[in-house]
């Protein structure tokens, strides 16, 4: 039985006393996708206050940035958010190129877009499988990983790794893609579209899932703006903020794609945003493959020892989870003075406390799953 002194009596908003106890959704928990601790003050099944405690996987990435040259820091960027590693490398490399005024050849830009979008799809597949695992459906995880395996094989063929790619270089790419990749990507796009349809009828239209997600965890536009939430979180609340449209970078202005936005702001809206984003990524990949120019993949005259002129440089990309921005402060040496990484998951997590007040525990877990948090992204 519960020990009596574990229960605290609080006075709730309407003046009535209630007994609460504190449960740790501990650092080790199947539903938190990493080492995140959430201290929940519960009143029976309802959450009175959920306080996230992060920092269990703080690896001092930004401090490492102050001790490594620009080329040496590049592998670190893949490991901040290992699920969408390409886009994070893109952010860093873009900042350095913008500072050094390097001209990236068009073929490299197109390949960067293709690989980033493939990475986005694989990240969303992991999110989808893990989210459904939290909700109790075990099978879609394996279907998602089957598709993801194909993406990883494609990217392994050109980069050599499957998760933390380190493929982009300052000024272009590490090496060029071959025909196997191009044909393989086309084949993948062709077989992925029916799979997305299958996911739709298996999961998205399923009445049990709809009951679980519709009107659960509503997040308003004002709350998103207050906490700086970006990515599918804010697009599921009705604000069409996508860094690819608002601050266009790389080759994105040349492609025709839709930024999916839904008004409701509940978990179902965020779910649908991500499913639709996968379809749009397929569109972008197809257009990029058609437009793929020939030419070099590395800029000319990239100095071996790169020293950026003194100043403050910033670059933002749309990662799978939201807006990822890199700010480099340089004092003219080959090692930056400061590398600031603005990660989306920290902002997305910060609205969990306010959004989950008064919810039931399983609903709060569904909300956390729909925020798509990757904990190393929060702690860096």
């Amino acid at each position, binding site marked *: 039985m519960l020990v009596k002194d574990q229960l605290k009596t609080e006075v709730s908003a309407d003046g009535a006393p209630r007994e609460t106890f504190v*449960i740790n959704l501990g650092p080790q928990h199947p539903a938190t996708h990493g080492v995140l601790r959430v201290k929940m003050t519960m009143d029976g099944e309802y959450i009175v206050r959920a306080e996230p405690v992060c920092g269990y996987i703080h690896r001092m990435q930004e401090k490492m940035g102050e001790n490594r040259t620009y080329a040496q820091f590049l592998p670190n960027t893949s490991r901040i958010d290992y699920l969408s590693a390409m886009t994070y490398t893109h952010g860093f490399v873009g900042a350095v190129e913008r500072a050094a005024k390097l001209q990236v050849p068009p073929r490299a830009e197109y390949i960067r877009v293709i690989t980033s979008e493939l990475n986005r799809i694989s990240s969303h597949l992991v999110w989808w499988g893990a989210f459904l695992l939290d909700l109790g459906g075990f099978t879609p995880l394996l279907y998602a990983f089957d598709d993801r395996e194909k993406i990883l094989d494609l990217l392994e063929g050109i980069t050599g790794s499957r998760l933390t790619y380190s493929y982009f270089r300052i000024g272009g790419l590490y090496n060029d893609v071959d025909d196997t990749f191009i044909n393989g990507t086309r084949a993948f796009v062709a077989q992925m579209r029916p799979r997305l349809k299958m996911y739709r009828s298996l999961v998205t239209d399923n009445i*049990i899932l709809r009951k679980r997600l519709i009107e659960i965890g509503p997040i308003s536009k004002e709350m998103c703006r207050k906490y700086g939430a970006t990515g599918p979180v804010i697009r599921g609340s009705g604000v069409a903020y996508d860094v690819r449209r608002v601050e266009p970078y790389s080759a994105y202005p040349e492609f025709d794609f839709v930024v999916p936005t839904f008004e409701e702001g509940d978990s179902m809206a965020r779910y649908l945003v991500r499913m639709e984003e996968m379809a749009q990524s397929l569109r972008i990949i197809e257009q990029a493959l058609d437009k793929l120019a020939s030419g070099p993949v590395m800029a000319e005259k990239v100095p071996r020892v790169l020293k950026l002129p003194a100043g403050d440089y910033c670059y933002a990309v749309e990662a799978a989870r939201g807006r990822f921005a890199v700010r480099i402060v340089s004092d003219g040496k080959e090692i930056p003075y400061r590398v600031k990484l603005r990660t989306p998951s920290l902002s997305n997590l910060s609205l969990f406390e306010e959004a989950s007040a008064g919810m039931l525990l*399983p609903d709060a877990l569904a909300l956390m799953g729909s925020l798509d948090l990757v904990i190393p992204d929060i702690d860096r």
Partner: protein
Amino acid sequence: MMASISNAISALWPEPLRLVLFVVGIMSFVGANAAYLVWVERKGAARFQRRPGPTEVGWAGLLQPIADAAKLMSKQLIVPAGVDRTLFRVAPLLMMSPALMSLAVIPFGQHLAARNINVGLLMIFAFGSVNVMAIMLGGWSSRNKYAIISAARVVSQNVAYEIPMLLVVITMIMVTGTMNLNEIVLQQAGGFWHWNFFRVWVNPLMPVTFLIFYTCMLAETNRAPFDMAEAESELVAGAYTEYSGMGFGVFFMAEYSNILLGCALATALFLGGWQSPIGHLLGNWQSTIDVLIGLFWFLVKMYFLIFSVVWIRWTFPRTQFYGLLNLSWKILIPVSLFTLILSSAMMKLFR
């Protein structure tokens, strides 16, 4: 006097032997099934997920349940400090026994019911209520926040789903006119169009009735999508958190025995029990081979239902707790009341 004693013994002799054979048979049937349904579940789950499942232990993993049982038995039976010792130990046994006892009235074949009790159906449901108490005891005596929350949920879930189940069973009793399971099966003789599932001239919503029974059976045995008791990603292991080793093993076996019982009951009530779907294939039903054919059909139908239970578990996510209760109170109970009234009206009108 010796003659009268020998007369008495020869009159009694077949019956005790028969009972002993049945007890041994049912217990070994339940034991073997509880173990090998684990294999069916794991292989089924694997095939639905396009992977091979257990393959290492024995050919196609058939010795896997034995390895699992050996592992569970070799674990220490930890009884945590501060628990209610008697209740903690008794709870798994209490969950296992109703299933075993209720199987005494299920007709596996023509003469293969252990006891042909006239109120067999009532007896099964009387025993079924003990399950609820067993989980409550298990959760309560564990002295663990998570276990108690989970046990409370399970009690409200089971109570909510017993009501539509009983309403459906009352409808069936009304339609068939008897509570004796063997007679219910005998009424479904002929081809499959005589099965209670297709008896739409008495109750036009008979397939719906079967679905309600099936859903209630899933909820009573705490199977997905109604498995709040074992919601792994939410509350660790729910009501069974504090059980280790064979205590947990017995809960597991009890769950599978309950599924076995529920599917056997559904077969007997709705799908014609041991009746063959193609009518009287062989003339008279008295010879041994016909009894075996009856047993064969019973097992085929029961295992088909068990396969569909596994299929449903690995397809759907878990329902929300209030969604589960809403389903029962707001949808299943009105519909089953409606079918009850409808079938009684039809029976009155077309008598």
